[in-house]
């Protein structure tokens, strides 16, 4: 009796191979890319079922869901890459509701000709970040577009999470008298990317702060369940997040410039590039607003966590129908910290 031979496919060449149109065409080549790259890297019980969707039990209570597209350029930068950024950014958006992130989904848009070696590096970095965060990538999608129709790789990630009972965090809950706390130095991510793009070096290199903040948030809500607002100041930086809080809550915010933690290298780079560090993106920081009475215990809880060690109280909320963010300058005057006009740094995340 003759046996039907198993079809042989040469393994993907992760050293010199490149993405071609067949990797997105739905045929064997696509199945191979999924098997040899995505399945191996993200391996978990949901992916192993090989369905077009992940099926899981829904916990009781309130759920949160968020999505984020990542188009950062360059794809690899000091302190991270588009892969870990795509995991951290989306986990953080879930965490900023005070929620525990449960599952991730990932969509890839690949440009024809993109090196498989780079793709593997990115996917491995994503898988590492997801594993470290304890949030599995349970479903995904891959598309390939012709050369020139995208820039290497774009990644969209979606996450769902669950909010612990009794937590109600929203940008609209800031009240006059509240305190504003930031979890650490601002501007690191944007400056790391810009200095890499502009080929600047400052003796000590500046690294992106890309990190998943859900564990820090879990400790924060445990210490102070009544936190009013939480947000990660990504694009547009600290200034934009505070303006969002002010507008959503219909309050004014007054900052103390000298209290805002900024690394000297970041300050120097901003000086050179003509940027204001308050508007530069972060990927591993958060801003919290809480009642004045809770501020000390919240600060203590943050400083006890590795990602909040440099947490600082930077300002307070006051009544202001105009919802302006103002700042007492270190020099001794006052000024506004307004909404960003136009685009300060393109394709930062």
């Amino acid at each position, binding site marked *: 009796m003759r046996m039907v031979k198993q079809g042989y496919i040469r393994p993907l060449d992760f050293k010199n191979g490149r993405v071609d149109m067949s990797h997105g065409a739905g045929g064997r080549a696509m199945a191979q890319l999924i098997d040899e790259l995505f399945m191996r890297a993200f391996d978990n019980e949901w992916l192993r079922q090989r369905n077009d969707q992940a099926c899981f039990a829904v916990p009781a209570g309130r759920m949160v869901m968020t999505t984020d597209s990542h188009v950062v350029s360059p794809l690899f930068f000091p302190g991270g890459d588009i892969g870990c950024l795509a995991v951290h950014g989306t986990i953080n958006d879930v965490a900023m509701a005070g929620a525990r992130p449960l599952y991730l989904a990932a969509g890839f848009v690949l440009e024809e000709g993109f090196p498989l070696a780079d793709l593997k590096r990115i996917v491995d970095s994503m898988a590492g970040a997801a594993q470290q965060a304890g949030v599995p990538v349970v479903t995904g999608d891959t598309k390939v577009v012709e050369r020139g129709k995208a820039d290497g790789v774009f990644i969209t990630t979606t996450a769902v999470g669950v909010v612990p009972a009794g937590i109600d965090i929203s940008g609209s809950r800031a009240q006059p008298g509240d305190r504003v706390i930031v979890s650490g130095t601002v501007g690191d991510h944007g400056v790391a990317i810009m200095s890499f793009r502009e080929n600047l070096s400052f003796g000590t290199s500046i690294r992106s702060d890309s990190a998943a903040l859900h564990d820090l948030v879990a400790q924060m809500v445990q210490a102070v369940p009544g936190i009013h607002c939480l947000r990660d100041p990504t694009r547009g930086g600290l200034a934009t997040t505070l303006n969002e809080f002010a507008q959503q809550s219909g309050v004014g915010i007054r900052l103390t410039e000298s209290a805002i933690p900024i690394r000297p290298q970041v300050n120097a780079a901003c000086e050179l590039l003509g940027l204001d560090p308050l508007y530069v993106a972060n990927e591993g920081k958060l801003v919290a607003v809480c009642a004045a009475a809770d501020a000390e215990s919240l600060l203590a809880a943050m400083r006890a966590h590795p990602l909040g060690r440099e947490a600082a109280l930077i300002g307070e909320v006051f009544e202001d129908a105009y919802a302006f963010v103002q700042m007492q300058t270190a*020099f*001794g005057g006052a000024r506004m910290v307004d909404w960003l006009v136009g685009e300060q740094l393109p394709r930062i995340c």
Partner: protein
Amino acid sequence: MKYADEYRDGALARVVAEKIAQAASAQRRYRLMEFCGGHTHAIARYGITDLLPSNVNMIHGPGCPVCVLPIGRIDSAIELATRHPVTLCTYADMLRVPASNRFSLMKAKARGADVRLVYSVADAFKLAQENPLRETVFLAIGFETTAPSSAQAICSAYRQRLNNFSVFCNHVLTPPAMAEILGSAQMRRTGAAQIDGVIGPGHVSCITGSQAYESVAREHRRPVVIAGFEPLDLMQAVLMLVRQLNAGRHEVENEYTRAVTRAGNAKAKAYLDEVFELRPTFEWRGLGEIANSAYRLKPKYERFDAELRYGIGYRQAREPTACECGRILRGEKRPSECKAFGTACTPESPLGACMVSSEGACAAHYSYGRFREIAEASA
């Protein structure tokens, strides 16, 4: 940050503020114009006016290169980018400046014109070198600060026969504008702002030297103090002006000694002399035609002159009627006194150029200072 924090020290600022308060006579006002947009920006950003006595007032000057370019020149740049097969290189601020009919280079770009953002003329030069079959034009704007680098690029293009490179030259000069503001007949007719003293430009003076303002100070009997861009520089310059005014002096003094000399930068000035000649007259937004106030390329370099190469004429264009940029640039009005400020005219949808550049008086006031009016109104 070393070499910067020293000039932003709050404790020192209080010492200088105290000295100003002591020096300023309660019997009079001190109306001081900071000529330069960089100074306007620093004053707003550090909240310097909070540290000055109420009778020492800062008046914003016209020293923002984006702001003083008349609409007609921007119309010309748009015409260049849309009617000719060229790559037009320019600074980011220029993209958003409203031209006639609320058009702009950014809108032209969105409709397919090849407009590129650059940080300096060197980027445009490199682009021309890398694309020898494509004509590349640099939209040159700025005072004596940026003019030498344009001149140097033109010299290099001449030497290297980089014939696909040219410059649309809109470089303007500081001293004629300062003289115009301090004393022209037109100013007197329009009831221009009374200006007692001037904080002179810092970066421009690195090139020109402090001597460039000596005749202006003498003729108009107004003291000029050249200042750096850090907040303590400005505080110190205010103190120096107050002291000169108290003593009835009108000299050029230099606070910015770490960068500015009396003679200026000889090498940069040599480049300017080599490449540029004075235009008999040039229109400034807000100030009108000022004789001998702008550069054009000398005949030797005319093939790098985009105006000649593409036959670009100049047509005067009407300013939007609601926009008070002109009077603000002359120091006659404060940004908040313009009816359009913060309503029809905001950084997101500017009517006039002063709301576009971060050095523009309206943009600086909108971004950093507009909470003050509310505090004043409710007080």
